[in-house]
């Protein structure tokens, strides 16, 4: 094994490589929130209030996701009901 190979191997699992991979995932994830409408947190809060009038759900029982592609924008609302309510 030449010295050069040694450097190549350390490069593949170096901390810089790990840093890059982590950043690529994180940045892609955070960019997907960039175009999100600013009313989302408020919408989520108010929806929760309405639902809590009828069902006893926790704060984190509701999630609101905004997604966007070239053709359409979708708003996905997910509410998880507690076991007992069935």
């Amino acid at each position, binding site marked *: 094994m030449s010295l050069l190979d040694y*450097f190549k191997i350390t490069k593949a699992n170096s901390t*810089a490589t790990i840093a*890059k991979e982590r*950043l*690529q995932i994180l*940045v892609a994830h955070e960019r997907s929130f*960039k175009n999100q409408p600013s009313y989302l947190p408020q919408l989520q809060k108010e929806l929760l209030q309405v639902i809590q009038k009828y069902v006893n759900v926790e704060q984190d029982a509701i999630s609101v996701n905004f997604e966007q592609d070239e053709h359409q924008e979708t708003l996905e609302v997910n509410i998880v009901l507690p076991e007992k309510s069935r």
Partner: protein
Amino acid sequence: MTRIIVVTSGKGGVGKTTTSAAIAMGFAQKGHKTAVIDFDVGLRNLDLIMGCERRVVYDIVNVIFGEATLNQALIRDKHCEQLYILPASQTRDKDALSQEGVGQILEELAAKDFEYVVCDSPAGIEKGAHLAMYFADDAFVVTNPEVASVRDSDRMLGILSSKSRRAEQGLEPIKEYLLLTRYSPERVRIGEMLSVADVQDILSLHLLGVIPESKSVLTASNSGMPVILDEKSDAGQAYADIVARYLGEDIPHRFIEEKKGIFGKFFGSK
């Protein structure tokens, strides 16, 4: 025509003030009438880096509140007569800045035929940082080859493209440039530090220049001289390259590869 440049990053301590001082001096040395504004209200430091801390009488908040004229507050640099510094207030809180007030100052600078206005942004994404970038034509995004800095820079890019005057008025977007600072080719070689290419892959920005990690930055700040005045230093030369490149000169990138000492030759650093 006045060109407004914001030096920004999101993260603190990456080299914004060092960069603002250096490039403002660089523009002025090339004969362009330049102002550099400290937006870090409450934590002013640009005055120290520029070596004019004892000449500060009025500051940007005094001008906004009508307690002093812009002419009274602008400090003429002692090394270069084309360069003026507008200090931040040390005593007021950061909410003393207003969009209208900053806008008026920038208009007045334009009326006084300033060619470049360099806005040294505070860290964070709050009011000071927002106002520093709001009116910008160009953004110098100062980034260190380190995870938190790269992430914060990406965040800042999102803000530049959505919350600036140019974005709100539907004008041509702010031109964004990457300045990778505190770079250490040795550490990149051994896999300890993100490389220029890595950071560019993630941020996809036009690279204006790489500034090496350099002792000369500290010695320059010790004596209150922007590091670009230290023409023998690597960091000083890197900033001089950046200024020239920004002004349209075609200058190859330096400081990305390791210096070829005996060690470099021995291993034939490729």
